[in-house]
């Protein structure tokens, strides 16, 4: 196995493009190294992007935030601006593993690992995050929900790497939240995850985005759930509709972490709870 | 004296719940028991403990058995 730690995105892309064998990008490594340890993968080349200055920074831009692909959860949590703007996204990312894992794990890595249960993904989708992907001589920006195509599968082409995750500028009346269910309080994988972002106008939901994790092969956007909230003040009827829409959108499996029935049921429960938090954060009366 | 057998050990004594044996020590008791019931040998191999008036003895066969004592034979156990 070759290990490279380029100093620029361009160099990283060139290395990945040239490699004939199995090449992997090393961001936080909290999934990659586990897969290497268990013999699941045997890379020929590992490209460590943590020495690329652009990839390790959170930049405030005119459009919002540009979060380098190698930015760790701990860095996100330490960014006051980001915590204020997108608390749901930061909380979701900070739920991944322990403080130790937070020292390494990245949103981009969480995304590219393409686990249906990735915590940061529904939150990013709800927040309208986009991923900037760089390939040889090409840079493209796509919505986060277009990155993962199936369990362990992404739309990234050979030689491409995510450079940054971009979050929009927060509207004053926007609030987001992410909740997940796990049997333990920490160190666990989501059985169900719900990310919600709401924008209000005089207490009425104007815009909503709802995304679910761990209930389908990929994180899913649930437009019906969003529609259930738009035009309401988050009354009980709206929350009931939200819960029903979320449960209906689920296409889960039975596995070691939970049953399909359980996931369907709890998706609705968590959606209600997350919506209330997002509503409050958007300035709605609790 | 009457020697009671734990359920596990009864198969070695033709299913009897208790047997009459006169013995002054654990050693004498176990020797006589196997003489009379060769089937007990297998249980002895696996380990046996003797409770005399509620005190459990595992290894020390020199222990004296007082007259009128409650004597109970049970399998040996281990733990975590």
């Amino acid at each position: 196995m070759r290990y490279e730690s380029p100093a620029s995105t361009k160099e990283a892309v060139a290395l990945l493009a040239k490699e004939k064998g199995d090449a992997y990008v090393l961001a936080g490594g909290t999934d990659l190294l586990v897969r290497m340890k268990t013999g699941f993968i045997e890379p020929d080349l590992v490209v460590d992007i943590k020495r690329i200055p652009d990839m390790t920074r959170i930049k405030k831009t005119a459009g919002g935030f540009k979060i380098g692909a190698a930015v760790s959860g701990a860095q996100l949590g330490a960014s006051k601006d980001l915590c204020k703007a997108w608390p749901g996204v930061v909380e979701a990312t900070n739920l991944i593993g322990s403080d130790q894992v937070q020292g390494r794990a990245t949103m981009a890595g969480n995304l590219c690992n393409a686990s249906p249960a990735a915590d940061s993904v529904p939150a990013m989708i709800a927040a309208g995050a986009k991923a900037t992907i760089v390939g040889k001589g090409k840079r493209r920006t796509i919505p986060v929900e277009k990155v993962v195509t199936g369990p362990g599968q992404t739309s990234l082409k050979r030689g491409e790497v995510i450079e940054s995750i971009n979050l929009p500028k927060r509207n004053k009346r926007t609030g987001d939240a992410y909740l997940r269910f796990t049997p333990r309080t920490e160190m666990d994988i989501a059985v169900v995850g719900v990310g919600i972002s709401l924008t209000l106008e005089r207490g009425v939901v104007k815009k909503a985005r709802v995304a679910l994790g761990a209930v389908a092969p990929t994180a899913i956007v649930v437009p019906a759930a969003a529609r259930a909230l738009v035009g309401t003040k988050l009354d009980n009827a709206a929350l009931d509709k939200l819960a029903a829409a979320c449960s209906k959108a689920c296409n889960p499996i039975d596995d070691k972490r939970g049953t399909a029935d359980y996931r369907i049921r709890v998706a609705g429960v968590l959606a209600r709870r997350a919506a209330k938090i997002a509503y409050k954060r958007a300035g709605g009366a609790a | 004296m009457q020697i009671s057998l734990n359920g596990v050990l009864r198969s070695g004594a033709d299913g009897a719940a208790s047997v009459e044996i006169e013995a002054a020590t654990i050693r004498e008791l176990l020797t006589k028991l196997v003489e009379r019931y060769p089937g007990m040998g297998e249980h002895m191999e696996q380990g046996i403990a003797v409770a005399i008036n509620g005190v459990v003895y595992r290894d020390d066969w020199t222990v004296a058995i007082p007259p009128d004592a409650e004597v109970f034979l049970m399998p040996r156990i281990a733990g975590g």
Partner: protein
Amino acid sequence: MSGAVMVSTKINGDVVEFACPTDEVLLDSLRDRAGLTGVKEGCGTGDCGACSITLDEQLVCSCLVLGVEADGRELGTVEGLSDGDQLHPLQKRFIEMAALQCGICTPGFLVAAKALLDKNANPSETEIRYALAGNLCRCTGYDKIVRAVQAAAKDLRKSKKR
């Protein structure tokens, strides 16, 4: 050992150089090449925290870092906690308050607890419990560990006031 590369790093303040295969995790490099067996392997997958170290002052699981990544970085392990012959207040309190039984998780707990107290001098019980959630202990039920961290935090606050 095929495909080994030289790594130059600073561990507990000392420059250490070793050659390691590119696919070797830092946990193994620390134990087998730097001789720091205080760093323990409980799972190798980042789920138990026994291999906790600091990497450029950031708390990490050394089983989730490649040895080669340590090149040019500064590492901190349990072996570097004491100041000369003076135990760190966390170490003292762990012994005094029986916060360890078998002791295999202790190095990881100490490193993680120090990382917490470096950031937060006066953590609540809940903050301590969540900050240490990445460190598994199977002997103590965590009771005496949390109490020892509380006591050490108090000691450290007092010594800083002086």
